[in-house]
């Protein structure tokens, strides 16, 4: 069986574990697995510090008051915690940014990577919110529900990713 102290699991075993999370998601939280709504919750709280009118925007208000979004915000914090625990127990050490970046791009410094990450993160969440879900919500959960819209979203996601990756080195 898989163990927490393993340095790695097969991607199939990891996928089965994630798929099984749909049981508590549907049965206890009454929603599907997702991650990108939590960014709206964070954005809404931060915006409302500087702009009291932000809480009047329905989209922000919904993400600040519904239990579903508290659950998802806790979920993404748990993801960070789980990855930390897993890397520690598995004894996997990593540098301050992935080695892959210097292989795939000409970005060599952490500063350069942070700018790229910020821009990428902005586009990522813009896209996820416009599409109404991300790799978890549309991908893992939407396709498991045989949703037509989610399947279109995943195809578009691959199209956008493939075209963008053309600009990167192949290594």
């Amino acid at each position, binding site marked *: 069986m898989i163990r927490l102290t393993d340095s790695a699991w097969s991607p199939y075993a990891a996928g089965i574990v994630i798929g099984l999370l749909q049981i508590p998601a549907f049965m206890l939280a009454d929603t599907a697995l997702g991650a990108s709504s939590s960014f709206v919750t964070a954005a809404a709280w931060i915006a409302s510090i500087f702009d009291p009118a932000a809480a009047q925007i329905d989209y922000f208000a919904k993400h600040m008051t519904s239990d579903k979004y508290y659950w998802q915000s806790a979920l993404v914090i748990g993801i960070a915690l*789980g990855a930390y625990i897993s890397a520690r127990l598995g004894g996997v050490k990593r540098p301050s*940014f992935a080695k892959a*970046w210097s292989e795939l791009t000409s970005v060599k410094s952490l500063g350069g990577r942070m700018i790229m990450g910020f821009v990428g993160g902005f586009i990522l969440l813009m896209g996820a919110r416009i599409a109404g879900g991300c790799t978890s919500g549309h991908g893992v959960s939407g396709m498991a529900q045989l949703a037509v819209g*989610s399947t279109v979203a995943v195809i578009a996601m691959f199209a956008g990713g493939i075209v963008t990756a053309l600009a990167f080195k192949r290594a």
Partner: protein
Amino acid sequence: MTTLMLVILGLAMGVVFGVALEKSRVLEPGVLVRQFQFTNFTMLKMFFAAVATGLVVLAVLNGLGLTALHPKAAVMGSTIVGGLLLGAGIVIAGACPGTALAQIGVGYKDAWATVAGGILGAMVYGYNIDAIEGLLKVGDFGKITFDQLLGMPYWLLALIVAVALTGVMVALEKWRPWRAEMAGLPGGDRLPPQREDTMPTGTAGQKA
């Protein structure tokens, strides 16, 4: 469930999710970018396994009437434009919204910038939601699903698709064994010894 219970549940589920993203290396930027270059298939392997498992789980739960499904609406304009941007963002950030948090957990410092950029992206979207929706809310087909289109019970089509995806995974594993694809990644120099139960099919994994 009370809000506190939901937060504890979310945290616990997130820990499991984060462990799976780290153990499978799907949080690695190189794994995501190389999936879109079709030079590493670790992400698709995990994704297919997660979808196939979800299909079986939901076929049983929904088939027995224990839970309702929550499919998202198919609004073609926003789904396609948003999906294209999402894919571009995954490659530039080297992360999905969920894996960005996992990257923070394993100590990738640039992931903090990814999350900050993501929060700003969500904020700009929220402030401009009416304008963006007005522009892209075209081709709204509602919450349609393939089982409805085909006039089949959900559980039946879900099980058929799960079997088909398992076939795809068996073929993928024969073509690109997962251990070989993980060897060049962090911790790849000491992958766990081969055991019999690392593949859902039980056999193909041992050929790696």
